[in-house]
């Protein structure tokens, strides 16, 4: 399966090369705007953006969330070294929602008494992720489970609008979501996702949520900036995650700042 995915991804990418120069130039501009919150952080970054030759296929979902504790991915300094310059390819099932999914739907306010920095409450937050969504969208987390089987969320415009609660990206990350692909994000949700390193908030070039269905098998390839829907046999261009990528990869702004020497290592 993994091999197959890699192959598919390479083929799909080839077909995007023709248009990628334009896409990249435009989207870098807009991406810089979004990512600007962390842009200055990255000026001293030592990483190779596209240097990763190895594709990491990570089956997310159950068990993947266990890599994180206390709202930050458990990552030793040696892990950080290993991750440096690696590709980011997220593979798994997707859950599809529409426009303006607000933080009350991601994690309703009654669960905000859970403190994300406490490890047990972090896990509990994850078990309530997306519980505010309308029932007709289906269960995001199966009855009796605490993790989701969906590694990727696909959405429309303005994902994460509403409150500044960091509980929102934390709950999603704790549930096992690795990436959101949305047409656009609310500002604070985007920033909180990057600051916590909980998930990749990736922007699609176009409106894609209606072309994907919940349960489809997808790959989010952040090196080649494509979303591949294997079930539908379609590929969608993504805007580059840009300078936010390494911050999320490191596990958030504190981990990133330590890794790059901005602040002293613990």
């Amino acid at each position, binding site marked *: 399966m993994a091999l197959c995915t890699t192959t598919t991804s390479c083929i799909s990418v080839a077909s995007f090369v023709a248009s990628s120069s334009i896409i990249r130039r435009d989207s870098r501009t807009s991406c*810089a*705007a*979004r990512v*600007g*919150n*962390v*842009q*200055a*952080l990255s000026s001293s970054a030592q990483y190779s953006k596209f240097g990763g030759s190895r594709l990491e296929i990570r089956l997310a979902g159950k068990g993947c969330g266990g890599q994180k504790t*206390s*709202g930050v991915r458990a990552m030793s300094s040696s892990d950080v070294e290993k991750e440096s310059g690696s590709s980011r390819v997220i593979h798994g099932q997707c859950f599809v929602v*529409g*426009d*303006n999914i*607000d933080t*009350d*739907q991601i994690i*309703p*306010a*009654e669960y*905000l*008494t*859970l*403190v*994300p*920095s*406490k490890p047990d409450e972090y896990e509990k937050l994850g078990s309530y992720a997306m519980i*505010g969504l*309308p*029932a007709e969208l289906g269960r995001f987390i199966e009855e009796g489970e605490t993790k989701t089987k969906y590694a990727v969320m696909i959405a*429309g*415009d*303005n994902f994460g*609008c*509403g*409150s*500044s*609660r*960091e*509980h929102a990206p934390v709950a999603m990350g704790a549930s096992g979501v690795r990436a959101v692909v949305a*047409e*656009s*994000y*609310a*500002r*604070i949700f985007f*920033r*909180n996702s990057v*600051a*916590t390193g909980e998930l990749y908030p990736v922007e699609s070039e176009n*409106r894609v949520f*209606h072309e994907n269905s919940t349960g489809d098998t997808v790959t989010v390839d952040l090196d080649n900036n494509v979303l591949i829907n294997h079930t539908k046999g379609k590929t969608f261009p993504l805007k580059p995650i840009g300078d936010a990528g390494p911050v999320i990869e490191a596990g*958030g*702004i*504190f981990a990133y700042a330590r890794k790059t020497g901005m602040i002293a290592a613990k």
Partner: protein
Amino acid sequence: MAQGCALSTTFTTGIMGPSQLLQRGSSAAVAPSMASPSQSQKWNLSRNVVAVMAPPQPQQRSPASTGSVKHAMTVTEKILAKASDKERLSPGENVWVNVDTLMTHDVCGPGTIGIFKREFGEDAKVWDREKIILIPDHYIFTADERANRNVDILRDFAKEQNIKYFYDITDKSDFKANPDYKGVCHVALAQEGHCRPGEVLFGTDSHTCNAGAFGQFATGIGNTDAGFIFGTGKLLVKVPPTLRFRLEGEMPPYLLAKDLILQIIGEISVSGATYKAMEFCGSAVDAMTMEDRMTICNMIVEAGGKNGVVAADKVTFQYLEGKTTVPYEPVYSDDSASYLEEYVFDVSKLEPLVAKPHSPDNRDTARACKDVKIDRVYIGSCTGGKTEDFMAAAKILAASGDSVKVPTFLVPATQKVWLDLYTLKVPGTDKTPAEIFAAAGCDTPTSPSCGACLGGPRDTYARLNEPKVCVSTTNRNFPGRMGHKEGQIYLASPFTAAASALTGYVTDPRDFL
């Protein structure tokens, strides 16, 4: 000094007719989300309102005669320049700003404290014990043990760090027994003198933008960013481009600031100002009270905005008198500052509005919703629970002399607001708002807090535990916002809320004025 909003010399604009509006609207408002039904309704509605934007403004800057380049800036850019020790800034630049004030509350404070301790050490000290404001306000009057524990966490931290401003509550059975307790953080910040022109305020709450009413930069952040500020007093921010909203004309007696911001959000959509500053000016803004300005700035986040701002003026300075001894330095937009877009509204032509379920930009006129039967009315929150909000509601009730037809819940934002309800007289009457509410059959004003605006624990007063229809003076009507996922929330002004309470239907307040 340029206060208010002198028009840029690079363009002029005025109130255009509907046909011009259509042209502008088709290029700007519709593009992002054609598919949503609310968008198409909004599109139709746009034909009926006088709200236009100017042509894109040239970005050129002319060299001054001395040869040095004059760099005109907006008020937002100037505040951020000052806070980052820079002479000049432009939108898109990333700068480290020195933070004047950081506010956190019982919902996000414990997580922020957790991050601060994890990253800076168990024994670490905050960067400035006088610049951190801790305000328990969200889940106070509840039996929820974890909620109560979270207030305890704030208290322990305040003690440990010797935090100067901690508005504690220990006796939850009677809020009045807690002189330090204030209530809703954004209103408390203003009333306690923590909002000052020219400063930078961050808060772990999206409605921190409320404080932009004081001519300062104020925005909401997450726990991780707040934990960073706890330790360093700084934050990296991107300078937003500014959208300018000129609100001109005289406010009709049936309109309130809430109608104006609902108008604006309906115009530009819930993502229309994402990453952008929203600056408000014009004769209608000049004539506004501080509470009006707060209502407008409070809800800019519902359009995705980063910050809202109203230039400080004599109204601001008067409000601040006696509230703070901290010297502050107001700054103002230059006449030739660059704006991404300008919108001009003739407020005299606007009507009382509601935002229908389930989005703050799902705008409609109150009168068009007159057949919507409602189950209850809620007056409260940072947006619609200030003294003037209750005065406005009381004015409608007093004018009608009737009783409310549906349960009407009153949640004063702060202890000060609560006191006002029992001491001030409603203009044109010899009664206090509390007396008028009692005579009309409203619920007795309850303990000040965020209340059911965001649902909260199950035992929260006035929480929508069933799929009811509520007209509310709060700020959000997303699914589940006040509790039940199928609950329907119509956001409205206090006038419209009170009028609706009197009829049991969404009602235009002109029926009672």
